[in-house]
């Protein structure tokens, strides 16, 4: 479904990702692990089209090719890529602070034309995150951190994505909220949405996903079934602290 072929992400002063190839099948739950600065967010932003393809004149951008359902998407605009069914829940939630919760959710459904379907999705999202129900008319910035994360995910679901990219959803959440969030993400995947989860919290990523990639300094150092990675000596030492 998703295929990254030898991609590199270049910034002015450094290279964030080099020579990364990765593939995700329909219905998969894949996690990308690595410490801070390993290139995880850059990888997601390359997929979403936030990082533009590197041109000859500029010294930053994306090199390599990305395919979605057999179609090349590297080079398309972020808005176009979203319209193909790839939705990212960005790091730090990026809630629209002055829009109400309801409007935030409407933005999620921005590309959809099926009024009744949008209504159904809204009800489904609120059933998954009942906390948001009483907050529909509150401004985004009035929510707590946990509620904002719930809203960010609900907003993503409103787009009816085929592929959902999560960037560090557990960041800043209490252990209890993190546990709840994990269950919600698992449920979303069970219902048929393909998920790519980027996590610094390796334990969480490995617990949820079925396949994992481990990045270090922008390079892929390990990949495999999460059950194997959990038993891998290197992973245990470097990322699980055992």
């Amino acid at each position, binding site marked *: 479904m998703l295929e990254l072929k030898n991609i590199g992400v270049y910034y002015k002063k450094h290279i964030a990702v080099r020579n990364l190839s990765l593939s995700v099948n329909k219905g998969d739950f894949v996690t990308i692990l690595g410490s801070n600065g390993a290139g995880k967010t850059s990888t997601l932003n390359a997929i*979403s*089209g*936030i990082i*533009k393809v590197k041109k000859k*004149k*500029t010294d*930053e951008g994306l090199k390599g090719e990305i395919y979605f359902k057999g179609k090349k998407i590297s080079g398309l*605009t*972020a*808005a*176009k890529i*979203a*319209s193909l069914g790839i*939705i*990212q829940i*960005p790091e730090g939630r*990026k*809630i*629209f*602070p*002055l*829009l109400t919760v309801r*409007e935030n959710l*409407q*933005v*999620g459904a*921005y*590309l959809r034309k099926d009024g009744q379907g949008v209504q159904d999705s809204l009800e489904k999202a609120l059933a998954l995150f009942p906390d948001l129900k009483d907050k529909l008319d509150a401004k985004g910035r009035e929510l707590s951190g946990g509620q904002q994360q719930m809203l960010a995910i609900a*907003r993503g679901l409103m*787009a009816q994505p085929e592929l959902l990219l999560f960037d560090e959803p557990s960041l800043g959440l209490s252990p209890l909220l993190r546990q709840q969030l994990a269950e919600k993400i698992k449920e979303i995947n069970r219902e048929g949405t393909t998920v790519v989860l980027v996590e610094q919290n390796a334990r969480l990523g490995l617990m949820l996903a079925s396949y994992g990639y481990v990045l270090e300094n922008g390079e892929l150092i390990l990949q495999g079934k999460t059950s194997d990675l959990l038993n891998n000596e290197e992973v245990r030492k470097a990322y699980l602290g055992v």
Partner: protein
Amino acid sequence: MPPAEIWIDGLVQSCIYMTMAFGMVLVFSILGILNWTHGQFYMLGAFVFYYAITTAARLRFHLPIYVSFPVSLLVSGIVVGGLGVLVEKLVIERLTSPGYGMLYVTAATLALIFFFEGAAGMSFGLLDKGLATVLPGVLELDSFSISYQKIAVIIFTLVIMISMYIVLNRTKVGLAIRAAAQEPTAASLYGISVGRVSLIVMGIGCALAAMAGGVMAPVYPINPFMGRLPMIFSLLAIIIGGLGSLTGAIVGGIILGLLNSVIAYYVSYLSEFVLFLLVIVILLVRPQGLFGAPIK
């Protein structure tokens, strides 16, 4: 206390500054730039309005004024709004792409001031044109009188601002604009094309300036240089209101128009100078403007 006429004149000025400042802030909130050509869109709007309304009369359409006035206003908004979209596409978009610093687009929009003024001078002539006969007459009230032209300015500005409120808060386009202004990256992740939103706000902002010019056309003389002063005052309104705040643009515009008229009543020369001093005093008390976010 100045007489009612002074306040009414102030309110009429408030209408221009508020409409222009609103458009400039709208553009700023998405494109992150101040469009220095904004005053020339006001000027072009007045000319388009002038030609629309006089052409309609010359062709003997015999439209009643309550039809030809708003239609001409709409025509000026559409024509000049379209021109704004072109400027965004051909000039601003290119000069704000990665690799270009802020000064490129600043220089370009400053240059456009003289391009549009020169082009207007070549096409329409440098002499003042007037539309004083469009809405003749004065409404006499007990203690004061007000011309129908000024009533039209106030009514149409109200209509324009209410329409803007509806567009921004009740339509899908408005939702896209507000989302892109608050979190552009997140907006693009959900399919909102920030490039397209830029074109739309530039169209709306320039149309607002044009309609401000059109609505004022019967009140002030029309010439290629009429956009300069309103532009300076609108900038001042934005500074008072707080850069980036639409509410601030409206309130700043109202305050500035009234202040300008009242100060001119007391000190006829140097009144603009006194106005600027007052604005500096306001900024000393609130450096971020009335509605701006605190400066860190």
